[in-house]
């Protein structure tokens, strides 16, 4: 008879019955639980080391350095809240914050809306479905710098695609990226286009989990495709929507490479973002302490947004 560990746990050990007749089972459970915990920690250790080295320590270091004047060339000196006070009074950072909020406000919902519609269509059986899915996902796996270069050409006032198309209809073109009235919108458009792919993929996966019987029942009741979309698809996608929403907001708040290639924050700070100001503080102004403080402010924004979003949407409760 083979005694497995679980068998031994379930059966009292005849030899270990105590002199007072007390059962030894709780101590065995304790040592098993302890060894399981130890095994768990052991398995977690590589990930913990990685998280500690590359995430926790840099985050804590950023927090600490945000209270210092640190130019890289000389040791940091403690200045308390001076960086944060300067941020509070900085018109450019305020503008960058506003631009970031506007960028997020438009790119996230628009790209989510387009992504869910595209996902619904690409969830149906059709010829070339795989090719269409790949085409929509392609921007997600293309380097942002390459995307920005192409859009730079498309936005060119002299020979760009957009002004060419407008000229075809007799509409005067714009200096899309040089005009402060249009520059942010131009950047938002690129952000929407680039963001569709990943969201579509997540929605596609979530759509597979929706019971087809719901649609059948709705069809029998006479619900149109549009009605089914709003009454069944969207509510059933709520958990995925919450995830996409949070991840998209975090991604939108961290937009940098698009701005770096397309506009460098211009014209006249019309498209500067919080991340771009962090970059400028660190690498153009050599003010690492200020850059850290700006990063902490950005982090705080994201934390608050995530918490508020979870409360408003009810998280993954259906």
């Amino acid at each position, binding site marked *: 008879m083979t005694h497995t560990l679980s068998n031994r746990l379930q059966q009292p050990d005849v030899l270990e019955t105590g002199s007072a007749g007390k059962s030894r089972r709780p101590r065995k459970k304790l040592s098993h639980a302890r060894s399981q915990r130890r095994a768990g920690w052991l398995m977690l250790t590589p990930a913990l080391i990685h998280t500690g080295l590359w995430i*926790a320590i840099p985050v804590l270091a950023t927090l*600490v350095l945000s209270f210092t004047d640190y130019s*890289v060339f*000389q040791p*940091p000196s403690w200045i308390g809240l001076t960086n944060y006070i300067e941020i509070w009074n900085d018109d450019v950072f305020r503008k960058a914050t506003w631009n970031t909020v506007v960028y997020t406000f438009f790119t996230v919902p628009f790209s989510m809306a387009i992504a869910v519609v595209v996902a619904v269509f690409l969830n149906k059986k059709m010829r070339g479905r795989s090719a269409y899915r790949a085409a929509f996902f392609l921007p997600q796996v293309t380097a942002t710098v390459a995307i920005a270069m192409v859009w730079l050409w498309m936005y060119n006032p*002299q020979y760009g695609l957009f002004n060419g198309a407008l000229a075809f209809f007799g509409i005067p073109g714009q200096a899309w990226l040089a005009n402060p009235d249009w520059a942010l919108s131009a950047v938002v458009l690129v952000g929407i286009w680039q963001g569709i792919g990943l969201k579509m993929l997540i929605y596609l996966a979530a759509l597979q989990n929706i019971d087809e019987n719901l649609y059948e029942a709705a069809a029998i009741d006479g619900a149109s495709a549009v009605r089914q979309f709003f009454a069944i698809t969207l509510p059933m996608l709520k958990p995925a929507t919450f995830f996409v929403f949070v991840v998209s907001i975090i991604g939108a708040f961290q937009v940098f490479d698009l701005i770096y290639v397309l506009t460098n924050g211009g014209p006249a700070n019309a498209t500067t973002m919080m991340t771009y100001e962090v970059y*400028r503080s660190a690498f153009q102004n050599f003010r690492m302490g200020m850059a850290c403080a700006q990063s902490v402010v950005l982090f705080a924004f994201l934390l608050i947004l995530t918490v508020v979003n979870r409360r408003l949407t009810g998280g993954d409760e259906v």
Partner: protein
Amino acid sequence: MRTTVRKGLGGVAVALALTLSACGGDAGGAGADAVDGEVAGEVTLLTPIFEGDTGKQVLEEELLPQFYEEYPDVEVTIDYTDYGSLNEKLTTSIASGLTPDVMMMGVGWIEGFADKGVLQDLGEVGIDLGELEGEVAQEVLNAGIWEDKLYAVPTMLDTRFGIARKDILAEAGFDGPPSNWEELREYAIALTERDGSGKVTRAGLDIMTLDPRQMFEVFLFSNGGDLFNDEGTEPTFNSPEGVEALEFIVQLVREDKVEDIGFSSTDADTYPVINGRAAMMVGHNDVWIKVQDAAPEVADELVPFMINGTQEAMFHGGTLVTVANQSQNKAAATALLEFLTGPEASLAANEQRGNVPARAELLDSDYVQDNPMVQFAMENLDKAHPEGGVPEWLEVRGEFGSAIEAAILGQKTPQQALDDLAADAKAAMSR
């Protein structure tokens, strides 16, 4: 909860201790070691020039073999970058303690890095300032001097001045380029062309291909203004001369409409003056090599001219070579610096980029004699003004572009834009 808070505070305390002890390696702590007699070992070179395949070929296949002939025991590891990324490279390398032995950087960069102790005083490693003064124009050499010590030797200059299309000017009845601001404005208005929809098809004066800061500096200097006072304690670009210069620029764009916003940009593929989309421009001396590539048939139609407000002036930047104060091999690093700033290497680097050699002896070289833009720049070096002048310049210059753009776009008056910029500069200088 209490335990969690204690653990969190403990973590912050540990991070505080680690961070403050690890950060800010003393950039100047290495001191100036005496240069040993033997030149050997490994040195790293950080260069924002020699970009692309052509540049790499010039450096690695033409120049460095000559260096190795003289110093066979030295091995040079090259880190290529461009001026757009040089800041990041320098910051991260200094912060990580991996400062390159030899660093090439721009005019206006030396003061800040020298002040922070990043750069080696070249006088302490055998570079004779007196000797250089006979070989390099003083105006140019000054860019490498900070607090009376030499920290960098120039290898090339790049200049900004007026460039006109003789053929386009002649069509409009003008004999030659404008000789002062009034003529510049008159010519620019007369030479501007628009299509039926009102869109500019030919700019009378293209000022948008150039970086807005450098473009403003040309007009600032030509109006007798300067960036900072002689003591380097106060910004003076918002002086009446500076405001007048910016007002002139804004008037050209917003009232005279000699160029539309967005007509050109700093990343334009071709200078508009080359393909006839502009009659004149405030441009770079590298227009000569660009026109040879794009439209050699119009090369002879390009004529340089000085921008003249109250004085003739042009802007000059450039590339200088430095040795890191923390270099572990200063003998080899100094040898490499001397080689890169010597006549052969300097000429090759300048030819590759169409730039202006810093050495006066190269004025008679075939390269300079065959390049009218470079020749013009070398002959007018006494009217060239550099940017920089204070250790905080690298921080201040980053704000210039948006200030100039704000004025051109009408978001601020020139006075407001420059006053706000001066306030930012003062704040940086007082830190």
